[in-house]
Each structure stands twice: as structure tokens, then as C-alpha cells.
């Protein structure tokens, strides 16, 4: 495995290196909020999941959710990071209507998780190691709607107080692809661990992307933060646009201003945001309503012992144990449910064929239907049966694809479909010979052409397959044709 090289961007004045760091906000998959007992379900009636604590009523106080602490530690372990046995909650003070307390309870000097790292598979044999600076717990803010009324903004505090894990990377990414890959990897890890559902459409995972450019070997440039990017595609687009914007700006003689920007999906551009707190002085101080969090060794070890096999380990095992190509292993390891499915199909069968079918036809069908593998219309057992039917030559690979389509539609077992539709492969050499003879007899001119162009043989194969309604065993057809045509 080799570490990726920086992909440089060509500007008018020469090549530029892109430096990217990401702050990812991942909502903890807990039932209640970080400091209050209100529910966290997505899509509820406005202000129906708000306690007096979340609404910052006078005299209200926070109490820490144990499950959120556990999930943060679990995620930290999944990032190969240091767990800080003592951490402190701090207030980040600023005014905004979706922040009822006038401060966000977050962590500043002493976060619950320290340094770690994540390895990204970029291309076959190439990786990028991205350092993790820290992970801390903090409250999410509520939601403001600005388009309900010409003069008013509407505020819904359902999300106010929901637990977020803020995962801060080191500025180790060098391209839009790496930025996307990083977020995808984070998503995979938290879903594996069950600490976050990684649903970017619902906002349970979002990224703030920090982008700067510099001449290779030169000093770091000024960075801009693109806030709240909520899809992988937008991450790529936003970074591409921002890099271009900054390079153009500098090459035209301007200076990049440090600022917060928003990505506008419609135009594909980033634009400057009117700052939430002009002075950006959050006046962090330890929250006097909370006591320092102390974690015992056995608390941490119990969590460590309960971790599932993580994606990187799984990928390595798939390569070693099942003999898969690293790329396929990587694709499967990207999702725990897919691994489980795959291993069921692969058990006692040719793993490579199984991998091909899962990552190829099955994933293709799932994408088209827009369902997760957990809701696959084709069960792992049935797919396994299909693989068996191919392996023992009952049907050809070509026919298998047709059968698979029917399996997707009906959910029936492949054996049943093959029987009902009479799709069994014809391997009876006598029958094939008869077909071959017929095709040869009916096409004397083509036989003549064949003498000049040997590649025409494939046309004959095609004709025989057609005549057999695709059921002839292609290998047998080739063999018999070759004999009969003297190839």
C-alpha cells in the first residue's frame, strides 16, 4: 500500500496544492437528547420534542446522557483514537434565535476523545491516511425557517439539544475525492458501530469543509470554511468550486479572506455567509452547571471489547480468507449489512463469484429500486442458490442474469424460476450439434466469409445462442462450432 501523492491543480501561474480539513458533525443515535430527556426522532411536529431545558426556560439545568458518552467513546475507539479519561464541558457563547440558551454546551480544552487516524482507500493499492485531531460531544441547535413569512423567521427547537459528535480531522486531505472518501469512511465507521445512522439527507451527518490552496512547498494559505455540506456529491462540487475561486482570486492579485461560506446546490457555487457572531469571540469557559466527566478504565475496556470487526479489518480478512480483490473487498466492507449478506452467499461457494454477483448485479438492482441491502428483494440464500446453479452448469451466466431480474421482481427462488421458464442450459452436445448444423446449412455465404475473416466465428456463436433461446452452453457451442468449421 502506498500513500497517495498530492494531486495538484493547474492554475494560470503554475500548479497549486489543495489543503482540506473537515469538521464532521454526526448526530448520536440516541433516543433522547444530550442534556435533556426529550426525544430525537426526525420529522416530528415543530416544538413537540422540546423540554423546558431545551427551550432554555429560566432555572433549567443540563444532565448528561450516559448513552451519548458511551457512543462517543465507541466512535473514538473506531477511529483508533485516544480516549481522554477526564473531559470538561464548556459553554460556547453567541446569540442566534435557534440557540435558546445564548450558548452551546460543547467541549473546548478537554474533549472526550483525542488524536486518532483513519485510512482511506483511494485507488488500487493507494491509500491516504487522514489524522483525527479530536472528537467531542456538543449540543445541536434548533432550526430556523426563513421562507415562511416575508418579515419573520420561524424557529423550531426540536433539534435543539440533540447530541452531536464533532469529529475534527487534521488538514491532511489534498483533493475533493479525498474529502468525499473521508466522509464516506466516517459514515461507514459510525454505521458499523451503530453510533450514528449517517443519514446526510436527514441531517444526521454533515460536514464543514475547510479549504485553502498554496504553492507546493510554500506556506499554508488562508482557509475558508464551507458550512453544513450535506451530501457527498455536494462535497465534491463545493471543494472544486472553492479551489477554483481561491486560485483565480490569488492569481488575479487578490487575497483570500478568512470567512465562512455556504454551498448553493443550485448554482454549484459557494458564497459568503453573513457571520453568526461578527466578532467570533465565543468566550469559552467550563460550564458551571456540569461537573467534569471522569471515565473509568473498565468502562472504556468494556466498550472496546464489544466493538464489531471494523471495516479495515474486515477488508483485510476478505482478501485473505476469501481471496477477494482488494477493491471488491473494500466495496463490501463499506457496509456491515453488505458484509453479512456477502458472507452468507459466499459460505461454501466460490467467493469471487459471490462477490461479483453481490457488488455487481445485486448492488445495481438495489440502487435502481433505491432500497438498502437489508430490504433486498433477493435473499442471500436465493442468491447463493443462483450461484450454485451457475457453478454446476445448470444455467449459463447469461441466463443467470435474466433469472436474477425475475428474482428481483418476484422474490422467487431461482430453482423455481428456471423450472417454470424452462431455462435450463442445454449441454446435450447432440442437441447443440443439431443447431450448429442448422445454422451452418442456412448460411453458406457466411461460411465463405469466415474463411477470410476468422473473427466471424462469433457471429455463428450468436446465431446458435439465438436459435437455442440462449440456453445453449456457450463453451460447448464454441467447441462444436470450432470442430465443424475447422477453426
Amino acid at each position, binding site marked *: 500500500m502506498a500513500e497517495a501523492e498530492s494531486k495538484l491543480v493547474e492554475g494560470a501561474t503554475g500548479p497549486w496544492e489543495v489543503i482540506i480539513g473537515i469538521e464532521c458533525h454526526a448526530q448520536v443515535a440516541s433516543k433522547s437528547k444530550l442534556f435533556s430527556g426529550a426525544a430525537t426522532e426526525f420529522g416530528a411536529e415543530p416544538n413537540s420534542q422540546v423540554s423546558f431545558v431545551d427551550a432554555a*426556560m*429560566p*432555572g433549567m*439545568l443540563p444532565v448528561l446522557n450516559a448513552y451519548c458518552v458511551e457512543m462517543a467513546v465507541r466512535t473514538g475507539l473506531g477511529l483508533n483514537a485516544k480516549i481522554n479519561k477526564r473531559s470538561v464541558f464548556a459553554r460556547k*457563547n453567541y446569540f442566534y434565535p435557534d440557540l*435558546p440558551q*445564548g*450558548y452551546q454546551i460543547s467541549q473546548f480544552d478537554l474533549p472526550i476523545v483525542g488524536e486518532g487516524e483513519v485510512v482511506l482507500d483511494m485507488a488500487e493499492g493507494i491509500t491516504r491516511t487522514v489524522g483525527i485531531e479530536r472528537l467531542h460531544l456538543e449540543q445541536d441547535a434548533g432550526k430556523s425557517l426563513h421562507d415562511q413569512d416575508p418579515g419573520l423567521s420561524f424557529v423550531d427547537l426540536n433539534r435543539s439539544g440533540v447530541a452531536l459528535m464533532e469529529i475534527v480531522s487534521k488538514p491532511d486531505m489534498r483533493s475533493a475525492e479525498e474529502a468525499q472518501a473521508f466522509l464516506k469512511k466516517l459514515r461507514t465507521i459510525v454505521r458499523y458501530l451503530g453510533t450514528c445512522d449517517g443519514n446526510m439527507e436527514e441531517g444526521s451527518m454533515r460536514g464543514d469543509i475547510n479549504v485553502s490552496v498554496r504553492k507546493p512547498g510554500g506556506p499554508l494559505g488562508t482557509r475558508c470554511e464551507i458550512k453544513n455540506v450535506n451530501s457527498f456529491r455536494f462535497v465534491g462540487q463545493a471543494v472544486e468550486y472553492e479551489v477554483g475561486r481561491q486560485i483565480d482570486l490569488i492569481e488575479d492579485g487578490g487575497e483570500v479572506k478568512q470567512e465562512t461560506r455556504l454551498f448553493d446546490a443550485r448554482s454549484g457555487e459557494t458564497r459568503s455567509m453573513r457571520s453568526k457572531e461578527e466578532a467570533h469571540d465565543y*468566550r469559552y469557559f467550563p460550564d458551571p452547571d456540569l461537573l467534569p466527566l471522569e471515565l473509568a478504565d473498565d468502562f472504556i475496556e468494556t466498550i472496546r471489547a464489544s466493538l464489531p470487526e471494523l471495516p479495515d479489518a474486515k477488508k483485510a480478512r476478505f482478501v485473505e480468507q476469501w481471496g477477494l480483490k482488494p477493491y471488491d473487498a473494500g466495496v463490501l466492507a463499506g457496509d456491515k449489512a453488505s458484509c453479512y449478506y456477502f458472507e452468507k452467499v459466499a459460505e461454501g461457494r466460490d467467493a469471487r463469484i459471490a462477490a461479483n454477483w453481490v457488488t455487481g448485479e445485486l448492488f445495481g438492482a438495489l440502487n435502481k429500486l433505491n432500497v438498502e441491502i437489508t430490504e433486498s428483494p433477493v435473499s442471500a440464500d436465493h442468491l447463493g442458490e443462483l450461484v450454485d446453479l451457475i457453478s454446476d452448469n445448470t444455467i449459463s451466466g447469461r441466463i443467470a442474469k435474466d433469472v436474477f431480474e425475475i428474482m428481483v421482481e418476484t422474490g422467487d427462488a431461482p430453482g423455481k424460476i428456471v423450472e417454470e421458464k424452462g431455462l435450463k442450459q442445454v449441454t446435450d452436445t447432440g442437441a447443440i450439434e443439431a443447431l450448429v448444423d442448422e445454422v451452418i446449412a442456412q448460411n453458406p455465404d457466411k461460411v465463405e466469409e469466415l474463411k477470410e475473416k476468422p473473427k466471424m466465428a462469433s457471429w455463428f456463436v450468436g446465431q446458435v445462442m439465438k436459435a437455442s433461446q440462449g440456453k445453449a452452453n456457450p463453451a460447448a457451442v464454441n467447441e462444436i462450432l470450432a470442430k465443424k468449421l475447422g477453426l
Partner: protein
Amino acid sequence: MSDLTQLDIAGARDALGKGDCSAEELTNAYLDAIHEADPLNAFITVLPGKAVEMAKESDARRKNGEAGPLEGMPLGIKDLFCTEGVKTTAASHILDGFTPAYESTVTRNLWDAGAVLLGKTNMDEFAMGSSNETSYYGPVRNPWRLEGDDNALVPGGSSGGSAAAVAANLCAGATGTDTGGSIRQPAALTGIVGMKPTYGRCSRWGTIAFASSLDQAGPMTRTVRDAAIMLGAMAGHDAKDSTSINTPVPDYEAALEGGVKGLTIGVPEEYRVDGMPKEIEDLWQRGVDLLVEQGAKVKTVSLKRTKYALPTYYIVAPAEASSNLARYDGVRYGLRVPGDDITSMYENTRAAGFGAEVKRRILIGTYVLSAGYYDAYYLKAQKIRTLIAQDFKDAFEDVDLILTPTAPEPAFGIGAKTDDPLSMYLNDVFTVPASLAGLPGISVPAGVSDKGLPLGLQLIGRAFDEETVLRGAYALERAAGFTGKPDAWWRS
């Protein structure tokens, strides 16, 4: 009927228990007294209907044999405690109209013990003040006045309304909160007992926050016994308050009569400040003598960093307050003053809603937390706080209680110090250190000034050792024999 208001909590408990009077009669007696006491301005909200209703329910409970420790006791509640369905103001314009849909844990405990709500007492705005002159609802007048002098005196603050109400027999007892002395100092200035328990002893849930690491609820009563009874009902662990301590509440009343024989009383030399009025010094000495007469030993102790306590407090408390008061923004409750955009709405609302002292403290607090100043001010103050707490810890190796004056002077005239914030802050010089260290402290009326105004002495104890503090206070109270009551000039 007015006889009934002369009963303290222990006395009323007796009378109610024997059936000499009903809770309803007792409550009505207090409501009449309050009605006649408008000039004191001790109450922001009086609740005759609710009080009588609660009293009737209490009488019914008693009939059923379900009497609690404070059954039928009519109390004044400082308007910093959120009371469900009852307007709660923190004496601020910015909470106009705010009616909480929840009950603070401390007051919930009192109602569960059978007590009756007479009304919400006046206070300094958001508990910031030492004279009850910063209230949006006007200053409270001390029931005590100088002989032959009509001028109104301050009752102390911030729990000035509660202090005045107790001193003028407008309630059997009252709740206060103490952040830097706001229970103890007004108690001293009005000749009553006021106790701040150990930080974490009473829940802060539902108590409007001023400075989270310092605020504590406590009883304000006529006697030490009454304070023990009330504290027993108010205190207790609350899972909704992360800073609330999970240790059982002892029977404070049972601890009272232990006497001080064998206890060592510490006298901190640094509390003898320059320019201390002689009458305060004399009272302090008298307190020492009285306790020694009772069998206590005396020892001089050194609390080295005492002189830095006040400035430390005036960094830490405003810093926390500036953050705690950020939620008062006109969005979800209280006053809203319109603005062209959200920022001007915030600025206009807070400018109109907060009084001058509150604004000063928010600005100081914002400043000491801001980038470039945090280390020099806030962080430094928090380190000194550790040292101050250590000073006490060291002293308590050798002594069981520490005796000091409560306030540096008796009640002063309304308006006498309002031009000079700093001179007002100096009122807290003896009370602030125990607040910073989170230790329990009580003020006991122990004598009168040269001009006949009440003076108090403070006893400070170890963390969670309220029993010894109350024991010492009980002995001091009996020995000092202060029985003064102000003339009820407000009735004329």
C-alpha cells in the same frame, strides 16, 4: 388575629398541632399584615386566593392525619424561585408576564412538606445587589428605622424582600438565595436569621440562575430553630441538578441543642479590616466571649487570601451571569422590544429589560471572558478561588467553626450608595469568601449598633456540616438574647 403573626415557625407548628388555630386562620392573619405593609414593598406578588386555598387543603390534610413538617406554614418565596402558574419576575422588567409551567425543586419540597404560599418577595434584580435597590418593582424598605428618623433604610440584598417580610412578621419564614451574601447580609441588617447551606445541599433546578457555581437557596427565619426546620424541608438531592449532592439530609432540628462545649471557634485575623466600625469590632468580640462562656475554645486562624475574595467574586460571578442571562432575549418569554432585525431586537429588548446594575455585571462578565483577557481575569480568579478554598480547608484542621461579623456596617439609607457601585460591593466583604469556598454560613442577630439598628454575626462551617453550624448558631442566639423587633411604623 394579629397575635397569630407573632408565632414563629416552631410556635405555629405547636399551635396548629394542638388545634389552637387553623392554617386558614394563620394564613389570613398574615395576608392582613401584608395588606397593611405596602410601604415596605416587601412583596412583588401577593396571592390571597391561592394562599387560602392551600391553607384549606392543609387543614384537610391535618384532619386526615397527614401533617408534614411544615404543615400549614405560610411562607414568603423570593421571586427568583419559579412557581408554577404564578408570575415569576426575578424583579426584572425583562421577565414581564413570565408564568412558569414548572415548580422549582426547593419550593416543590416546601409544598410537599405542607407549607402555604403567601406571595413572591421583592429582591435585587436577578439577585444582583446588596441593598434591594435594583428591583424593577422599587426598593424594599427596612422595617427598622433610626430612632426619630423617617428616612427609609435598606434591608440589604439581594433577598431584601424576604428579610423585611420576616422581620416585620408578614410571614412565618421566607426563602432566599445567597450567591455572595444575599441571605446572610440582609438577615444581619434586619435582625433575623439567614442561612446559606453548603453549595449543592439545595437543588438549583427552577431557581433562576445568577452565578451557577455560587447560587444556593436557604431559609430566612426569626430563629435558628426555624432555620433548621425550614432547611430540613428545602434540602435534598435532585437528579435534575448535576451539581446537587447525593447525601442524605440529617435531622437539623435534632442537632440544635448540642451546645458548643468542646468546639473550637476560629477567628480569622484577616477579617479585621481597616476602618472597621468599632461597634462591629465590639460585637465580634462579644460573640467570642459569649461562646467561650458556653464552653467553646477560641483560636486565631489565618485565611491568607481573604482580601482577594471580593475581587475574585466580582470576576467569577459576573462572568457566569453574563452567560446565564444570555437567554433573556425576547424570543421565548418575557419582554420583547421590536427591532428592524434580529440583532436590534436583542439589543433593544435587553437594553430596556435590564437595569443598570445587571447591565454593568453582564458587561464586566463579557469582558473578563473575552479573548485576550480570559487568562488574566477569569482563569486567574478561578485559581485564586482554589487557594481561598484551601485556606478554609487548612483552617478547619484546627477549628470547627469560624466566627466573623456578617456585614461591615448596619443598614444604611436608601440611595446612600447607589452612585458608587464599588462601595456597594464592599458590603459583601465578610460573606463572599464562604460563598467562593462553597461552605455553609449563617447570620445570627447578636446585638444593636450605637444607633439601635440590628447587627449580625456569622458562623461558617465545614462543607456539609450544617449541623455544627446550626448548633453553634443556636448557642450564640440564646446567649446573645437579641429579641428586638421594629416598631410597625408602616401600619400608620
